[in-house]
């Protein structure tokens, strides 16, 4: 299990390759990577992510442990950045390893659903018209009800 809350970028290739190493009992590996989108008309200059040091690490560790137990994972990984990011940059990623594909997929979706509305991160979008906090979506809250 690996959990990291960091302001520095991470390398998807390096992280994916390292995560996949030595999984001779886990036939299925799923990764999800979230990137900063440019926005509807590409006017987003940057995204600033604030978090709650201490609580964030504890929340992410608990989510990864829950996923491992619930979906019988061989391994799980969560990396989430904070600070200022520009469009195209990677915000976060999760990775899951399981014996079969169904559990690996479900665990990755489970982690994403919890990260969206239960991990203490707040996004603010900076464009040429100013800065605004990203509003939470009802659909993200609703997504939790399936677990």
């Amino acid at each position: 299990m690996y959990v990291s809350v960091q302001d520095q970028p991470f390398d998807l290739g390096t992280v994916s390759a390292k995560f996949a190493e030595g999984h001779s009992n886990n036939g299925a590996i799923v990764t999800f990577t979230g990137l900063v989108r440019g926005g509807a008309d590409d006017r987003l200059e940057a995204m600033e992510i604030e978090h709650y040091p201490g609580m964030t690490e504890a929340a992410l560790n608990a989510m990864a442990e829950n996923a491992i137990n619930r979906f019988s994972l061989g391994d799980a990984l969560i990396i989430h950045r904070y600070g200022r990011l520009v469009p195209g940059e990677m915000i976060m990623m999760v990775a899951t390893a399981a014996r079969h594909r169904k559990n690996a997929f479900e665990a990755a979706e489970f982690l994403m659903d919890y990260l969206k509305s239960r991990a203490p991160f707040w996004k603010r979008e900076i464009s040429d018209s100013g800065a605004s906090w990203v509003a939470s979506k009802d659909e993200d809250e609703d997504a939790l009800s399936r677990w």
Partner: protein
Amino acid sequence: MDILYFAWVRERIGVPRERIETSAATVSDLVAELRSREERYELAFSDLGSLRVAVDQELADFDASLAGVREVAFFPPMTGG
């Protein structure tokens, strides 16, 4: 007790954290106490439905007890991922 504020709650209150002396029994009592202090608190806590609270770094309800609690944080719904 340490009180922390994040995102637009922090912006409205004007500080990221502060230490206060309180005998509030629950989070709700604490909120009522803060709202009675100054306009900026009244503004930040005007719509509790749009607020979330963590007690000692765990998500909690507004009726959670504050007995023995060291840290309470207020913030909008989270937008991670």
